[in-house]
């Protein structure tokens, strides 16, 4: 280990060495180290490459503000995480990290050529070039730019980790576990109620962790926290977003700080916290100084140097120079000296500095240069020295050193405050924005509120220098390579709003989101525009405060728990009998039941033939059902549906058609009147929730005078459709209490009795054109009854069929499927359902819209049948219909195919379509142009089988 680890001091556990690797080279650190402190201790200065110019970069900060030291951590197969900030990666034994955005190696990166030709790539350069030849952008320029851009590599395999989420509620939430935050927590706890304290670091203390003088007090405060019964403390937890009404999003890291072998349970947990009051104690972030060469590895924030020395026992260098514009730099220098770090000099841009500081520095043997500024930093992969001059313009002095600490003043962290739309006020003293008036029940304390003694300082946009700012490599946004001169260029090119300057230069748009660059950028823009900072405005703070894992935000909703799959009571039977399923809205339904290697066509032809020949059984349980009960039930349905309902006798069923208020069909279904004041409605599978919501809307907000109530019974009833000439024979032995005779129990009737000993609402209805029943039994009994009917049907050659066969059979009869044959733009007249519209009714939902001028004009699409001239030609659903296949493009289309099947009963294909003035075209030939061929078809009525309906009335 090199000599950068101090002999003593810090909060690391020197008795627990940890081995780790960076870019394949082995190093050693101690328990309590971060990856950054361990690498600095090992003499590493070069951490990464910048985004644009691929310049060599070192550590800048020791917290979430770090722009340069981004690494990829590899925790084994499929556990690769890019772009992690080294100072926030807790060291564990066997940690494997590698640098990013370089090729072939960190020390030698070919793309650093960008830097050599950097003058060609100022802010916004990409708008100005790469335009010729036209095609070259996608084929040449963009691929190259993409390859050079990006930082780390994305994971490429499914993440084996899982994530968790929870809500939480408290009376007071404190964000930030520094002295101020802990104090606020204890105050709140004293008033009782639930208090939550969260902090992003792995131990409480915040800035005090770099100030051993406060450790004793800190420990005392922690003991009080532990003693308070109503306080929950969560470390490694980042409050990333402050949403409406004190709703805070936070993520807790649970396993990344452990060696993979020791990790178990979820990797991260999302906390969705509702707080009565929020106390923000997020502290402040130190600002870099903008000067020529301020990005050479080894130039970092003074606060980082202090944190390394006093928390981690690491010297940032053997000869350290502090470049200060703020007293805190002096305090840090003295603290470093006290910890045994050799501080060669303090250079302060100010002409006057407190005598106490100057004296203390001299006493500590530190050379002091007041009123001076660094004009150059020497070294490429590490600092070798600096050149400085009085006022930046006097005679140049050279100074050898291996680290430069920048103390540019402090920026209170007002991120969450701003998420919550609290106002900000400009503070000259801080040279930063401070929290003003909140909107939510929220307050800021500590450094984050500007209520902390950081000493005094001056704000300098760019350090004074004899070098033209255009010639300086003075960086503002390190990661995005934004230099002071880029901001000048943006202003020169007419960018006056800070939002324009930000977007034009990308200042503050890197993964640190401007934590170190926003304020400096603002100052430089202010100087360039000659307007005070307050008039330049401030870019909006947006969640998240720091980048947050997709997985944590995904929470429970992964794999099997992504979304519920709704299954009917018959689903397991279908699975056991080899069903192939399809998703229909959020249900899954058996689509067909292949036997011995059948494909869908073969299976469906067999199932169709079986229903027409003998009997088929079908699971219709997913149909939506609504029980409508109350004295005004019939009146209510009369207003909702196009059909008249008042005349319907108990025990009878009716097909109901439902429109939206705009006159277009939204749902349909067969409904039964069980009693004068009780109806059993059915809806489409996908429409159930929508229809119930729509009906509740009218009932509650328009017709609240009606005495009628709606109850969803979709899941109360399992529905077994038994269809085919033998249907009656199959259930006869199972049914009691119901006369199944054709006269006693005609088509479109309903009866109550029992089947297989289970109470049933037995419907005699048919969606197939055959004699048919729909057996409604309580869902809990669904499978039992299904199996009894199945067994009873064996003697009759009963066949189970799925949704596809159901579709074919109904198509042979021209029954529509809302959502397939209609698309939300079709009226009852378009679909030939005039008979379902109550002509005498003064009103129903959608009636008025049907009278709008264009709703009755010729040329509207109408529902018809199609028979291809070649009976084996199967039209494609969705195929477009034209009158003239030779018309030039764009070819006028008159409609499209909505349903198309092979019909077993007809021994040919059939199709349903909606085409302009379709009913007037019956008998005519239309054309369906497909790639490579045009299919000819004849327009027919949408009815292919048993037009007189003798079978379903049998």
């Amino acid at each position, binding site marked *: 280990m090199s000599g950068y680890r101090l002999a003593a001091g810090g909060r690391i556990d020197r008795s627990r060495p940890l081995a780790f690797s960076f870019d394949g080279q082995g190093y050693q650190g101690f328990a309590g180290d971060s990856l950054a402190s361990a690498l600095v201790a090992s003499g590493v200065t070069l951490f990464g490459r910048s985004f644009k110019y691929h310049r060599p970069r070192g550590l800048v900060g020791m917290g979430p503000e770090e722009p340069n030291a981004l690494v990829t951590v590899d925790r084994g197969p499929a556990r690769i995480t890019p772009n992690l900030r080294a100072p926030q990666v807790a060291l564990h034994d066997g940690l494997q990290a590698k640098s990013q955005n370089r090729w072939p190696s960190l020390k030698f990166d070919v793309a650093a050529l960008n830097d050599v030709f950097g003058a060609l790539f100022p802010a916004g350069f990409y708008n100005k070039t790469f335009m010729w030849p036209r095609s070259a952008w996608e084929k040449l320029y963009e691929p190259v730019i993409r390859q050079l851009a990006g930082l780390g590599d994305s994971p490429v395999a499914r993440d084996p980790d899982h994530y968790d989420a929870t809500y939480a*509620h408290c009376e007071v939430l404190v964000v930030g576990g520094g002295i101020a935050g802990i104090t606020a927590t204890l105050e709140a706890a004293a008033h009782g109620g639930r208090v939550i304290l969260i902090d992003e670091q792995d131990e409480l203390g915040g800035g005090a962790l770099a100030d051993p003088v406060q450790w004793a007090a800190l420990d005392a405060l922690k003991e009080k926290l532990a003693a308070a019964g109503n306080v929950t403390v969560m470390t490694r937890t980042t409050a990333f977003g402050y949403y409406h009404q004190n709703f805070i999003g936070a993520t807790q890291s649970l396993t990344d700080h452990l060696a993979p072998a020791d990790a178990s349970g979820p990797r991260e947990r999302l906390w969705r916290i509702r707080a009565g009051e929020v106390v923000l104690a997020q502290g402040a972030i130190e600002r870099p100084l903008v000067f020529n060469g301020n990005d050479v590895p080894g130039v970092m924030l003074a606060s980082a140097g202090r944190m390394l020395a006093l928390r981690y026992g690491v010297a940032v260098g053997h000869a350290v120079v502090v470049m200060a514009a703020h007293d805190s730099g002096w305090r840090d220098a003295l603290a470093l000296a006290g910890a045994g770090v050799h501080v060669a000099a303090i250079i302060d841009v100010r002409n006057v500095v407190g005598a106490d500081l100057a004296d203390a520095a001299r006493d500590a043997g530190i050379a002091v240069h007041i009123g001076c500024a660094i004009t150059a930093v020497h070294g490429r992969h590490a600092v070798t020295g600096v050149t400085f001059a009085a006022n930046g313009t006097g005679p140049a002095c050279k100074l050898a050193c291996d680290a430069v600490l920048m103390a540019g003043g402090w920026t209170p962290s007002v991120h969450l405050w701003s998420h919550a739309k609290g106002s900000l006020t400009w503070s000259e003293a801080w040279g930063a924005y401070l929290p003003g008036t909140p909107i939510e029940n929220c307050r800021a304390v500590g450094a984050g509120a500007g209520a902390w003694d950081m000493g005094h300082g001056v704000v300098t946009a760019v350090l004074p220098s004899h070098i033209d700012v255009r010639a300086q490599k003075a960086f503002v946004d390190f990661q995005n390579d934004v230099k002071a001169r880029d901001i000048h260029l943006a202003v020169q090119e007419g960018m006056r709003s800070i939002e324009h300057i930000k977007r034009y230069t990308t200042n503050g748009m890197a993964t640190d989101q401007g934590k170190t660059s926003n304020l400096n950028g603002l100052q430089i823009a202010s100087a360039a525009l000659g307007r005070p900072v307050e008039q330049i405005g401030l870019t909006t703070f947006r969640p998240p405060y720091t980048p947050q894992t997709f997985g944590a935000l995904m929470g*429970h909703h992964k794999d*099997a728990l992504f979304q519920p799959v709704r299954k009917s009571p018959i689903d397991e039977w279908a699975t056991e009998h080899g069903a192939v399923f399809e998703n229909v809205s959020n249900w*899954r339904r058996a689509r067909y039941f292949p036997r011995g290697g059948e494909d869908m066509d073969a299976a469906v032809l067999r199932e169709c033939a079986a229903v027409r020949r003998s009997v088929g059984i079908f699971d219709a349980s997913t149909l939506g059902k609504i029980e409508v009960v*109350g004295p005004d039930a019939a009146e209510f349905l009369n207003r909702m549906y196009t059909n008249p309902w008042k005349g319907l006798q108990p025990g009878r069923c009716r097909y109901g058609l439902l429109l939206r208020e705009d006159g277009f069909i939204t749902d349909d279904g067969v409904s039964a009147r069980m009693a004068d004041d009780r109806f059993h409605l059915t809806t489409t599978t996908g429409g159930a929730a929508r229809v119930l919501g729509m009906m509740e809307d009218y009932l509650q907000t328009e017709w609240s005078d009606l005495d*009628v*109530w709606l109850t969803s*019974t979709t899941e109360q009833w399992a529905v077994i459709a038994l269809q085919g000439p033998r249907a009656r024979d199959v259930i006869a032995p199972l049914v009691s209490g119901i006369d199944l005779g054709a006269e006693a129990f005609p088509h479109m009737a309903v009866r109550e009795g029992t089947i297989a000993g289970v109470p049933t609402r037995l419907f005699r209805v048919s969606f197939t054109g055959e004699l048919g029943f729909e057996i409604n039994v309580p869902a809990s009994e669904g499978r039992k009854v299904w199996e009894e009917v199945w067994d009873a049907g064996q003697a009759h050659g009963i066949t189970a069929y799925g949704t596809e066969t159901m579709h074919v059979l109904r198509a042979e009869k021209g029954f529509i499927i809302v959502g397939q044959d209609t698309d939300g733009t079709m009226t009852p007249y378009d679909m030939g359902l005039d008979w379902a519209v109550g002509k005498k009714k003064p009103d129903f939902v959608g009636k008025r819209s049907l009278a709008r001028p264009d709703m009755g004009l010729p040329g509207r699409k109408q529902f018809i049948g199609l028979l291809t001239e070649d009976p084996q030609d199967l039209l494609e659903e969705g195929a477009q219909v034209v009158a003239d296949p030779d018309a030039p493009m764009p070819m006028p289309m008159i409609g499209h195919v909505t349903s198309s099947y092979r019909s077993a009963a007809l021994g040919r294909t059939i199709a349903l379509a909606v085409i302009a003035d379709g009913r007037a075209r019956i008998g005519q030939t239309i054309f369906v142009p497909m790639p490579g061929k045009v299919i000819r078809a004849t327009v027919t009525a949408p009815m292919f089988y048993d037009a007189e309906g003798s079978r379903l009335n049998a």
Partner: protein
Amino acid sequence: MLEIAPMAVAGIDLKRGSQPITGAVYGLPVTLAPAAPLVRWSLRAKDAALLSVALGRTLPDRVGTHHDGIARLGPDEWHGLLPLGTTLPAVSGQPLGMVDVSARSVGFTLEGPGAVAALTRGCPLDVAKFTPGRATRTVFETVEIQIWCLAPDRFHVEVWRSFAPWLWHALAEAIG
């Protein structure tokens, strides 16, 4: 007629558990168990008194509370959770809506010091303030549920049948 790649099973095949699961949330023990079969009624009326008479039972009057097996879910809506065998009186012609929905939902119980934390994983209500006697419709993540607080640390959770497997596994994960 569209041939599509056959889905052996659409979605991962969750099944509702039938045996109790005991686990812990943040170290607080909790047991998830299927509730015994119950009779369920959806009861609707503008006039609570009329409904009370028709049922021959006293009803809870505050929305969000339950009493004697009946919860008031809304101003005109009550929900009964009653022992098997209880029968719904046949009433007609009155301004009442009474529907037997015994098979529509299934019930789970969550019991133990960790019950509140388990529910809070996916329920946005401040469940800790949900004292015995409270009952309401709410959600667990995207799934609608009813929670009835039966005793301190003891909750009955109602969920529609087809959502039960998802909810069972979500709760099992929470306490696992």
